[in-house]
Structures are given as structure tokens and as C-alpha cells.
């Protein structure tokens, strides 16, 4: 029973990996950006756990800028993915323009809240 589960896990991992290699490059770039943003957010949470939450507004501002831009990047990925039936008629340029504008608003708000 145990042996089969480990074999299943390893098979799962291999199928995921081979499927992922097949994704287009632009989606992989977006994935990399999302990982970078989430990683930055995790560093900030670890720092806050260490020193305490004294300038809480700065902490929120830093974490939310990372999470916010990650969320916007995920939205971009959904809209640009050609395999997605829902956004078949949406031009990828329009999706990218939305992404840029939303990020501008996000960073404006973040800098204001940073204090």
C-alpha cells in the first residue's frame, strides 16, 4: 500500500512536470513573476514575525503590493492563455494593457499607504 502511494506520487510529479514543459514561454514568464512576488511577501511575513508589527501600515503596504501584483499577474495569465475558452475573443494586448493600468493604480495606493 505504501509502496504504491509513493509510486503514484512520483508518477504524478512526472506527468505534471512534462505537462508544464509544454506550456508556452510567455505563460512561464508570468509564472516566474508570480513566484517572485509571493516569495517577497513571504520574506516580509517572516520579518514581521521576528521584529513585531510596529509600523503595521508599512507591513500591510509591503505585503499587499506583492500579493496585489501577484493577483494581477494571475489574472493576466488567465486572460492570455490560449487554452482558456472563456477569453477566446479577448485580445492579449487588451489584457496586458489592463494589467499595466491596474498595477499603476496598485502601486500608487501602496506608496501612499507606506507612510
Amino acid at each position: 500500500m505504501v509502496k504504491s502511494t509513493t509510486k503514484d506520487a512520483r508518477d504524478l510529479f512526472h506527468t505534471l512536470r512534462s505537462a508544464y514543459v509544454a506550456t508556452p514561454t510567455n505563460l512561464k514568464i508570468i509564472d516566474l513573476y508570480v513566484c517572485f512576488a509571493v516569495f517577497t511577501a513571504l520574506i516580509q511575513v517572516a520579518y514581521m514575525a521576528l521584529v513585531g508589527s510596529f509600523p503595521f501600515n508599512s507591513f500591510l503596504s509591503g505585503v499587499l503590493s506583492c500579493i496585489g501584483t501577484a493577483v494581477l499577474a494571475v489574472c493576466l495569465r488567465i486572460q492570455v492563455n490560449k487554452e482558456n475558452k472563456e477569453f477566446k475573443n479577448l485580445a492579449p494586448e487588451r489584457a496586458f494593457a489592463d494589467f499595466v493600468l491596474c498595477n499603476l493604480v496598485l502601486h500608487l495606493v501602496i506608496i501612499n499607504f507606506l507612510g
Partner: protein
Amino acid sequence: MMNLSRSVALISLFLLPLLSFSFSVDNPTDRRVLVLLDDLSLKSSHSIFFNNLKSRGFDLDFKLADDSKLALQRYGQYLFDGLIIFAPSTERLGGSLDSKSIADFVDSGRDLILSADTSASDLIRGIATECGVDFDEDSSAMVIDHTSFSVSDVDGDHTLIAADDLVKSDVILGKAKIEAPVLFRGVAHSLNPTNNLVFKVLSASPSAYSANPSSKLSSPPQLTGSAISLVSVMQARNNARVVISGSLQLFSDRSGVQKAGSQNQYEKSGNEQFVTELSKWVFHERGHLKAGSLVHHRVGETDEPAIYRIKDDLEFSVEIYEWSGKSWEPYVANDVQVQFYMMSPYVLKTLSADKKGLFHTSFKVPDVYGVFQFKVEYEKLGYTTLSLSKQIPVRPYRHNEYERFIPTAYPYYGACFTTMAGFFVFSFVYLYHK
């Protein structure tokens, strides 16, 4: 009507020169002293003490204690600055004097020397009780000491004792050590334990007790040992000084003392020096302090601000002078403290003295805002109490006095700008990748 006002004006003109000789804030030594005696022969038997006072510039006015023309006040002004009562057996004081008027006299800041003796009357005991001193209730009791008596005791009942247990205070007893013991024959008194203004200047040795010397003791004596005080002193809260002694012979002219059990024989007893120094202290020739105003300002400025901010650096100073009998000398001590007080002292610092009487220190205002007081409460044994305070408010930071960037938040600032840079780089890479 005109006559009355003119006579009042004339009388007040006559009183003016009297007023200029009295003690004042600038010249605190007493000048005019009323001496009440119950027997005018005390003038000669205590001549050394009185002549000493006269040579130091006091105006002594000798009166019998039951003289019907006695008055301490006239038209609301006190005629005397000091009072010496050497009338232990007087039941009633003459004129307008009674124990209440004497209590008012001390309440007005004036000084008193009171001496009881073996036949102390209720009046004298009452005045002493007002000052926190309780004489032995037995009117025939005297202080007896079988180990510290004077060898020159003629009666042989060991009531003339040679006492040397003096209070250790340079300001009360002078810098010179009193070598010879002090002769004492009289009644014992104890101090009221709830009174914290009165203290012993000359106490009896541990082997002394208070009893009737001519009758056998039927029960153990109530007052024994060092609880017996022979001479006590009280400094009231308004800095009036009172000396209460259990023996009139203490002040008299005497000489030659040898304490039983000791090898030393002194030609002169310590009485004269003891009594002289004590009278100097009682009449404010020594130990009288005056403080100038409290001065405080921020470091680097000279003006006194109306309000401080938390965590300001400030400097504080006060001038204290001591009266030397003729002039104000700078006071030098290392135990004057200042408190920065709001319900409890947030800062308590000892002031450092320079030789000119200026006490100063500097400290940081605490991180609490509110209305504070600079308080100097100085109570040293034998010195006048100094109680100074000055109020000053402390405000918190204004909104533009905080630090612009908080150091602990630097990682968050960095994260935000890194994210923005990452977004910028990402958009280029996304658009122009192959």
C-alpha cells in the same frame, strides 16, 4: 476722630524703629528676646549664658514670669523674636501670656527655649506637650544614673549626672567636639513617638532611670535608659525652633566635672559650650537656609520655555544660601535632590554643587506627557526645610516632529520598490521575448 488717627500715626511712627530691628527674611537671626524667670536671682546664677547672648547682639528683656504687664504682641505685631522661659515652677503666666499665646508665638515662626526642673508646673508641662515632649508624670521624679553620675555630686544620690550622649550634628552643636560631659540635674522626658519633628539632642545613658531619689522604688520606673531625653529640640514646619530641657542647672555657671568610672577629669564641664552652640542654633545663627528661584531651560538656550516636549534635554539649577549669623554664605552639600514629579517622581537626580551655592543638573524629559513639577524637598537634621516647586507642562510630539522614515520598516520600503522594479522588468521581458 482726627485726634485718634493722629495718635495712631504717632504710635506707628514709634513702632517703626522697633520693626527694623526684628528678624526678617533677609536677616533671620532673632534680635529681641524675652526672658521669663520665676526668680530674679537666676540673672546672676546663669550670668555666663545671658552675657554670652548679649555679647552676640541679642536684646534680652528680663521679666518675672507672673509680671502682670507681660505681653508678646501689641497691635497685632510681635514685640519679641525669641522667648526663653526659665520659670519651671510658675503655675500661671502673667499679663496676656498663657500656653495658647506661647503656642501662637511658635506658630508665627518664632523660637523658644523652655526649661523645666524638679518642680515643673502643669503649665510648663502643657507647653512641652504641645511641642511633642512628655515630661515624667511623677512630679517628684528626677533622673538618676548610678554609673554616669558626676563625682562632684554633693548629695550622693547620683542625681547630678554627667551626660555625653549628644546628637551627631555639626549644625546643631557646632564643628568643635564637646570634649567634657555635660552636667544635668533635673527631670526626664520622653518624645512623643508619633511626632516626627522632635528629636533628642542630649540623651541619658542606658543605665539611667527616672524615679524619686528620696523614696524607695516600689515598682519598676516607667522611663529608663536611652528613651530618656535630657534635652530635646523641635524644628516646626514653619522653621520655628524650640529647645526643651529638663534641667535649669544645665544653663547655669558651673565648672569642673569628672564622670564616675572614667579617668578623665575636666576643669570645665561641657555645659557652656553645649548651651552656647545650642542657643546659636535655636536663634537661627546657624543652619538657616534660603533658596533662590528654580531656573530651568533647554540645553543650549537661556530662556525658560513655557512648555517642554517629551525627550527634550534640559538643565536645572537652584541657588541655596546659608545664614552665617551675619551674612548669607553659599551652601555646600552633596545631598540636595530634585524630582521631576507628576503624581510620582519620574526623574530623581542629586544636584551637584559648585562652591558658589549653585546646585545644577541636567536630564532628559521622560517619554510621558502631562503637567509636571520640579520639586526640591530638602529636609536635613538641624537645617530649615526647603520645599520648592515649579510647574511645567510637557507635550507630546507634533505631527511633523516624528522621524520621517522608520528604521524597522526599511524592509517593507525595499519590498515595495523591488516589486515595482520587478513589474517594470517583467513587462519588458513579457513583451519582447522571442
